[in-house]
């Protein structure tokens, strides 16, 4: 946690080493009100290496968010288990930072207090450390000068960046993101991609990124998992062999388009 003080120029986002994630034979069955059983997720297994950036794409209702919530420890799997490092996930872990589809900022807290929230809840950092960290994060998500403003005064893109800064507050070694840019316009989204990659390259957390935007998944990830619905399952695991660091010019290259097309063909309509 104190790494940042040894190397003051770099912004470290992660604790010592990012944990690998092992989703092992996980399934989730929901009961509807009428008592019917719906298989949201059927026998799913995959691994993420330490510091790997993996996206999960698929049509809506394919269980992407369910996978993320199970990894996050927010819901229990019906069968199977998730390993974070060597620990079985049973409840939300302090190693994990989460950014949701909606920013879900608390409107009565200023931007800086919203970002500080996870640390304040955890109660491990001193006031000084929190103030320091918030300042770095504000710079990172380009919101310097907005610390004292309130969520209601911010645009949707700014709110989402606050929520990403909040997810990074406690220097999590694992970052779970559930369509964090879904509500943003295309230009802001592409800008956020580069910012997210910059953040990731600084600390190399293990990232699970949920999206239904194929280009987004290709641009960001080391690997893309493709899911299908009814029952929710993984139908492909595509290696994205594009060089890093990735730059906006990549979007025009043929390899980028080819990977996108390959994934699009896999997604059932």
């Amino acid at each position, binding site marked *: 946690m104190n790494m940042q003080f040894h190397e003051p120029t770099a912004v470290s986002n992660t604790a010592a080493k990012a944990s690998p994630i092992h989703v092992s034979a996980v399934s989730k069955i929901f009961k509807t009100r009428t008592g019917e059983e719906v298989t949201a997720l059927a026998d799913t297994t995959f691994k993420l290496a330490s510091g790997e950036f993996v996206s999960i794409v698929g049509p809506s209702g394919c269980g992407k968010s369910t996978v993320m919530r199970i990894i*996050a420890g*927010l819901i229990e799997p019906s069968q199977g288990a998730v390993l974070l490092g060597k620990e079985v996930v049973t*409840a*939300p872990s*302090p190693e*994990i930072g*989460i950014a*949701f589809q*909606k920013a*879900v900022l*608390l*409107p*009565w807290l200023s931007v800086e207090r919203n970002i500080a*929230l*996870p640390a304040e*809840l*955890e109660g491990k950092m001193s006031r000084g450390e929190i103030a320091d960290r918030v300042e770095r994060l504000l710079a990172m998500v380009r919101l310097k000068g907005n610390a004292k403003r*309130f969520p*209601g*005064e911010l645009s949707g893109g700014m709110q989402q960046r606050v929520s990403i800064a909040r997810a990074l507050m406690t220097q999590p070694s694992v970052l779970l993101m559930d369509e964090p840019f879904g509500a943003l316009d295309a230009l802001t989204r592409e800008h956020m991609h580069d910012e997210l990659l910059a953040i990731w390259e600084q600390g190399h957390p293990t990232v699970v990124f949920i999206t239904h935007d194929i280009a987004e998944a290709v641009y960001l990830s080391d690997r893309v998992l493709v899911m299908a619905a009814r029952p929710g399952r993984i139908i492909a695991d595509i290696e994205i062999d594009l060089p890093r660091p990735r730059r906006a010019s990549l979007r025009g290259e043929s390899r980028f388009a080819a990977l996108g097309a390959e994934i699009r063909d896999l997604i059932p309509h």
Partner: protein
Amino acid sequence: MTMTTDKAAGATPQGRRSGGIQNSRAAVYAQNIGIKLLQLLAGLFAWELAVRGLNVDPRIVPSPIVVLEMLLSLITSGILLSAIWITMAETLIGFAIGAVLGILLAVILSEMPVLKAIFQPYIVALQAVPKVAVAPLFLIWFGFGMESKIALVISILFFPVLVNTIAGLESTSEDQIELMKAYRASRWQTLVRLKAYVALPFVFAAFEVSLVLALTAAVVAELLGSGTLVGLGTLIKIYDARMNSAGIFAVLIVLSVLGVILHTLVLVASRYFLGWSRPRGK
């Protein structure tokens, strides 16, 4: 009137941003007060005219001049101030106790669904009882002093505060609850850092309705039975016994002013505490 608005509209952009807005705001306030004074005077004038023109018996509707004279003598004799003091004490003490009890019970019930399930039917039943009908019982239990008045005030505002606060505490969104869960907030942290804030607008809505009701309750309790303490309700009773309509009208005017002041206080407090819940301009 039109002059001030024209001035504001014609001001330079810089002037409007800095002192200009405040100046024009002050002008608007002054203008509003002026209009209200005019309305008041016109109303009094119409009242006086009606009483004279229709030759109304002063014991039924006294002329405003007589009422104002009465009000003046009440003020100079010091009776009014001590009556206001007593009635306001009953209102505010009852309000404070009722609000604290209502909020506390709301927190307990919303945090413990089992207790809520047990108490819910009692709450519904008690809430349905017209509180004023219970006032004689309060007189028997607590005597003719302030206690019985405070008890009625508490009983009137307790339920709106309780029910609204429960609704408020339970109005958190699933996203917010999941956020707190994801960041491993304890139950207490979720209560004070999330639910309390979400409930606040509901609590203030209850205050807004019930503070004026509390004043009514204090007056009604005094009307139903009062001892040596002379509050505004007691004053009305005394004037009623003497067929002194002017005295009753004078007290009614005071009550109306007090009601408006209390309501304004709640509005100001809610603006202060709920600033975040209103959309802001940039």
